[in-house]
């Protein structure tokens, strides 16, 4: 009983000491909190160093998305590059888990340190490709998927990619 009462009194004293502890609160709109570079916020689609879309519409992000908020359709241009005909993210469903970023084979889809995307109208939370696509390269500058992949596109034949060997002529008998 004595111990119980003593412990309550000590509790009171220790809480009272917190009068002199400064508050941990960050007064948000006036005072912006620090967001780490890898903070998982608004999703963007990046471009490669040539200014072309990185996304090849492989659908891996849409498949891995646990809340199914990504929708896209693949199409192909005259150069042989794949790109999404439309790319739609419903941010009212998105949980910012970052799985799409992990799944992306071309570093196209990336999460950014920005969370200020409130809307009064729910329909405005659905972002189309023109809203998502940025002109920069995001977190991985200098990376170009077609520059390292074996896929042939206009202006880059087989064997011209980075670290790619010349194609072997299997009909030739020469060593």
């Amino acid at each position, binding site marked *: *009983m004595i111990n119980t009462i003593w412990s309550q009194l000590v509790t009171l004293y220790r809480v009272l000491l917190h*009068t002199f502890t400064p508050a941990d609160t960050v007064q948000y709109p006036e005072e912006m909190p620090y967001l780490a570079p890898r903070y998982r916020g608004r999703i963007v689609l990046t471009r490669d160093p040539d200014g072309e879309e990185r996304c090849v519409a492989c659908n891996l992000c849409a498949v891995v998305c646990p809340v199914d908020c990504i929708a896209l359709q693949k199409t192909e241009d005259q150069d042989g590059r794949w790109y999404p005909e439309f790319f739609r993210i419903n941010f009212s469903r998105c949980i910012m888990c970052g799985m799409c970023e992990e799944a992306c084979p071309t570093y196209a889809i990336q999460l950014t340190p920005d969370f200020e995307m409130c809307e009064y109208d729910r329909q405005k939370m659905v972002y189309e490709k023109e809203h998502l696509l940025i002109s920069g390269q995001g977190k991985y500058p200098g990376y170009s998927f077609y520059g390292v992949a074996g896929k042939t596109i206009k202006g880059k034949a087989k064997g011209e990619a980075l670290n790619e060997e010349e194609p072997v002529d299997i009909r030739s008998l020469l060593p």
Partner: protein
Amino acid sequence: MVELISILIIYGVLLGSLTGAAILIWFERRLLGIWQDRLGPNRVGPLGIGLALADVIKLFAKEDWIPPFADRLMFVLAPMAVMIAMLMGFAILPYAPGIHVADLNIGLLFFLGMTSLAVYSVLLGGLSSNNKYALLGGLRAAAQMVSYEVFMGLSLMGVVMLTGSFSLVEIVNYQQEHTWFIIPQFVGFVVFMIAGIAESHRLPFDLPEAEHELVAGFHTEYSGMKFGMFMVGEYLGVILISAIIAVIFFGGWLGPDFLPPIIWFAIKTFIFICFFILLRAAIPRPRYDQLMSFGWKYMLPLTLINLLATGAIVLWLQA
């Protein structure tokens, strides 16, 4: 002229206590914030004090919903009872020499009676809501407040024995001649403090509400201004108990001359209000059976021993 002054005092007390209760809602949240290392409400007006007004406007503007399954008459009467009882309690407080609404010669008994009447409010509110949580809250309130009332009254009897009067003005005058009752009646003070917390069902003795277990306890079904009246009643109770502690054990308006008596009264009351809030910030709520056994097994015997010892000393001094 005398009548005019007394009317002014009555309206002053009424307005002051209600405004105090409204501001206390904001003040408590602010102070809790400080003790929990955050800021608390600070957006509306300077330091966020506009929140008190905003809360009042919100409560008045809310839909006043009476559930169809409730006992209408009791449901409406319950929140009134607590507010009326608590406001009546303010009538017997001596704020400064000559400034009081009524100097009853049974002032202390009147105060105890009014706080007991407040139990009805919680009880009827819980019963008439026709809701399981509310009923559990009302049940707890009945047991807790009735049992803590026993030694709440008894703990003050030592003071009454020494003073020889139930009048609060007499009690303060006695303290002016002798010493503040906190020294001769320390046990009485501790017991009264604990019983007072239980009586105004504040944390850590807020078992009738116990929002973690009983949704909101006895006022689960209440909304709008009826809920507001329960809230105001609770905060009026906090102010009233703090003021009574200040008057009975800390000499009421007494203090060095450089401040007017009413300021001394306000300062002492304010300190105890802060203490109430500190208790809320620091102490966890006991289990229901712990609460009952604490009351009956420790508090009641302690009070009785205090009473006996005080009586013996009074007799010994007279002999």
